[in-house]
């Protein structure tokens, strides 16, 4: 009996079959389990938020399944290929954004959809992944921290799609796209002096944006955020009702399917952007903190994986994906609790809605591929 054989039998005993399978599939076990838990919580909350609609629950679970499949499949793609495809995906995404601008379908007053004949598709969703990947690709062979000229290229590369999406108009998504690119730059070691000067620049940019770029309804949201009581029939209504829902939930909540704000339909958009308030009313502070901790675990684990990745591209790309997810969570919970203005950002995995969930799962699939422990591949 050789040493090798002994060794392998010991390994067999220590690893369960599942763990081996996960390893072979480049799936990170803890992250996978956390994501499934978030998905399950989302399904439970959605059932209540939708007024016990089995159809919506089924649709959401189908999408979650689709997302999981996408995640597992993308985790199999070698990092080298992801890296090489990144700039192409970016260019295609940009072309499609331009197409949408000229030919796109208009749904709910915004021009976001591109009809490809067989499927309707939001190019802005693709850009949520393509922008950070392309930025990481651009930086991965350059010395870091990036030089000023690289930074200018990145600024254009992030700025153009951001503006195109903001014009659709989809403020929430453009914010996320900008954040995903910005995160890459920050993680690449952007010097403190640049960070300070960008903050300095934001003031004039904000003034210009206010006067020329923002649509009336977007301005209205900001104004209403500053003083929700000013428009209690219109846009202030969301914030007022969502705070009442959360506040009245107390520490332990009113109980599942018992939130009066939710079930009596006081709370608008309760199954989509404002679903966090549903958790707050029915499960109370305990429920909200649980959800927040779960989501923070997902972010923390992803960041940890990013830090252990082998090469610059993988680190930057997956670090950005993790932090963008964090922006998602913070912007949504912030707006629902009245800390931030209402921009249309859903709560990941819990809000009802299709494309965003699949994109997010795809992002985690990419992250898992980039950070999987491989035998020194694609240096």
């Amino acid at each position, binding site marked *: 009996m050789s040493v090798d054989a002994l060794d392998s039998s010991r390994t067999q005993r220590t690893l369960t079959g599942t763990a081996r399978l996960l390893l072979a599939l480049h799936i990170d076990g803890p992250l996978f389990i956390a994501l499934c838990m978030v998905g399950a919580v989302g399904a439970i909350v959605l059932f209540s938020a939708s007024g016990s609609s089995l159809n919506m629950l089924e649709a959401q679970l189908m999408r979650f399944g689709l997302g999981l499949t996408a995640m597992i499949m993308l985790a199999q793609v070698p990092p080298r290929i992801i890296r090489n495809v990144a700039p192409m995906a970016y260019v295609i995404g940009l072309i499609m954004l331009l197409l949408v601008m000229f030919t796109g379908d208009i749904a709910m007053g915004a021009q976001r959809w591109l009809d490809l004949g067989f499927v309707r598709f939001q190019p802005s969703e693709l850009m949520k992944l393509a922008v950070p990947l392309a930025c990481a690709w651009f930086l991965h062979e350059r010395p870091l921290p990036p030089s000023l000229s690289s930074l200018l290229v990145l600024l254009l590369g992030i700025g153009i799609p951001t503006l195109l999406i903001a014009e659709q108009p989809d403020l929430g998504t453009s914010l996320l796209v900008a954040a995903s690119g910005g995160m890459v730059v920050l993680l690449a070691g952007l010097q403190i002096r640049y960070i300070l000067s960008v903050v300095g620049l934001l003031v004039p940019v904000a003034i210009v944006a206010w006067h020329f770029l923002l649509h009336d309804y977007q301005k209205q949201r900001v104004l209403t955020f500053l003083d929700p009581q000013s428009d209690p*029939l219109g846009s202030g209504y969301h914030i007022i009702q969502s705070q009442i829902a959360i506040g*009245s939930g107390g*520490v332990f909540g009113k109980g599942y399917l018992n939130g009066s704000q939710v079930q009596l339909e006081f709370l608008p958009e309760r199954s989509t952007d404002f679903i966090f308030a549903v958790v707050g009313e029915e499960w109370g502070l305990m429920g909200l903190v649980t959800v927040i901790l779960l989501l923070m675990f997902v972010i923390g684990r992803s*960041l940890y994986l990013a830090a252990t990745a082998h090469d610059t591209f993988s680190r930057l790309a997956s670090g950005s994906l993790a*932090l963008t997810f964090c922006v998602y969570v913070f912007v949504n919970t912030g707006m629902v609790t009245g800390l931030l203005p209402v921009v249309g950002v859903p709560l990941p995995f819990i809000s009802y809605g299709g494309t965003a969930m699949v994109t997010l799962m795809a992002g985690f699939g990419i992250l898992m591929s980039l950070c999987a422990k491989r035998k020194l591949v694609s240096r």
Partner: protein
Amino acid sequence: MPRSVRIKDHHAETQLFEQRAAIAAVIMVIAMGLVISRLVWLQVVKYEYFADLSQGNRIRIEPIPPNRGLILDRNGLPLATNAPSYQLELTKEQVEDIDATLQGIAAIGLIDPESIPNIKRDLRGRRSFDAVPIKLQLTELELARFAARRHQFPGVEIRPRLTRYYPLAESAVHAIGYVGAISEEDKKRLDLDDYAGTTLTGKNGVEYAYENQLHGKAGFQQLLVNAQGRSVERIGDEAAKLERREPIAGNDLFLTIDQRVQQAAEEALRGQRASAVAIDPANGDIIAFVSTPAFDPNLFARGLSRPEYLALTEDPRRPMYDRVIRGVYPPGSTVKPMMALAALEYGIVTPENSIFCRGAYRMPGVSRPWRDWKPGGHGHVDMRKSIATSCDVYFYDIANQMGVDRIHDYLEQFGMGQTTGIDIPGEKNGLLPSTDWKKKAFRRKEHQIWFPGDTISIGIGQGYMTATPLQLAHATATIANRGQRFKPRLVRAIRNVTTGEISELKPSPLPPAHVNDPSAWDVAIGGMYDVANAPYGTARGATANAPYKIAGKSGTAQVFTVAANEKMKKAGDLAEHLRDHALFIAFAPLDAPRIAVAVVVENAPGGGSAFAAPIARRILDVYLLTPEQLAEQEAKKKPALPVPVPRPGDTE
């Protein structure tokens, strides 16, 4: 090279990344800590406050609908006002069983059981605390019946509201339009925040076109309500915070319509299927806008039952149909002055050129003659006389010489074949034919060919050519104004109710109709003057004795083509729906025109000059004469208006 080349330092980069990731993690924890502390503040510190708001007592926001702007005639006479009425409103969150409640209300006869699905659909789209009207304008009897059983229907209340009221009922209804309950279609168009608490919106005419002027802006008030949804006054700091914002009333509209003229025209047309429009040539103001039969717009503000609605829409006389802007008729001989101008413009004839009319026109190579309306012919006629006598042969000839495309291009300048751009929706184009048009209009090759014979009928406003009464009045105003055109309009000024400030709207000029030689106007207008005044003028009977000078032109549009060989039948012998339409256009006073009018009577018992001209005359009289002159006039011709009998053989 001042700087050394930077090379990648993998170790340093990894360190940098880890440092940044650590900072990011810290920021994340701080951010989520902020959210959690906000949650603690909302759910622990302010728990009582929010629990109160959500469960026991809460603030309900009640919208206060704005008063709709008034619609007044040009002199300030009210045509559409607001009147108090009572309506039944249902608030979803206070009703336990909506089905049972609606059926209960239907059982006491307040709503139609058939309308329940519609009401439920409407309820579904509203917020649970909105009071949704389910029955408008309750009668005294209905009020009493509901009041007696009120306790059976919690969540259903009687509310006083202002509703639209049209004091003159049918008068000018097609111009003013009407309001009706906000429909699913309307919801797509309107900003619903501004319509909270509003039940009615403009559906047609001025009420529709000027909706955003008339509507105003909703206000709101906050109410403290208990769990049953009843308003309560609570002691403590809550009550002090209640807010109220006053609604902003809609703007009043001054129409261009002169109600005195409008009413006179309506009386003159009563009993006919007809229309009449009068325009001020100097600015496009519409002085009268009549389409008969009409309907009572108050029915729509109240809400029609299905049978009532069907009775209106399926009436063969089509009272809802706006004949002024949607009725298209062959203009008949009323196009002759324009045709004459076109011939002069293209140099086909001079005004002095005369022809000898034998009562029929023959085209070389065609055996069938085109007959004149007057069997024996008119003898020698020059241009002016051919307009005055309405000699068809003269116009057959010039039309044939011009060709249809040149006619098309010239008459287009008078607004024929296109919408005039009046400020209410629904206007029709009419049809100004051309060879191009025929190619597009017919699918089969052999139908697409333009025959010279087609052009000949166009010369007298028959054949393919059609126009709306508004287009005819507009063209008449253009002739009166010697080419100057203005977009017809119904609203001349807007009064801001809050400030009392009246802003006059500027007339909108259109590209003028062109003539090479301005004396062409004298010929065309002279011909029209002769129609009304010369011994051989077709309309002298109705217009010659006026205290001011009238220029006009009669027209009779064939509905039913009498075979050319057959002896012309008298209008009276034909079935009513086959009788000719009677038309008359006119303007006055001749030298400084103040009013241009077009009258179209469908299937009239007499021709244009016999039947339509006296109506046009009546409109001109009421507008141009003082009340004293008018009374004098009435006294003179005793057997005043009643239907003049057509003279035998005179269909023109």
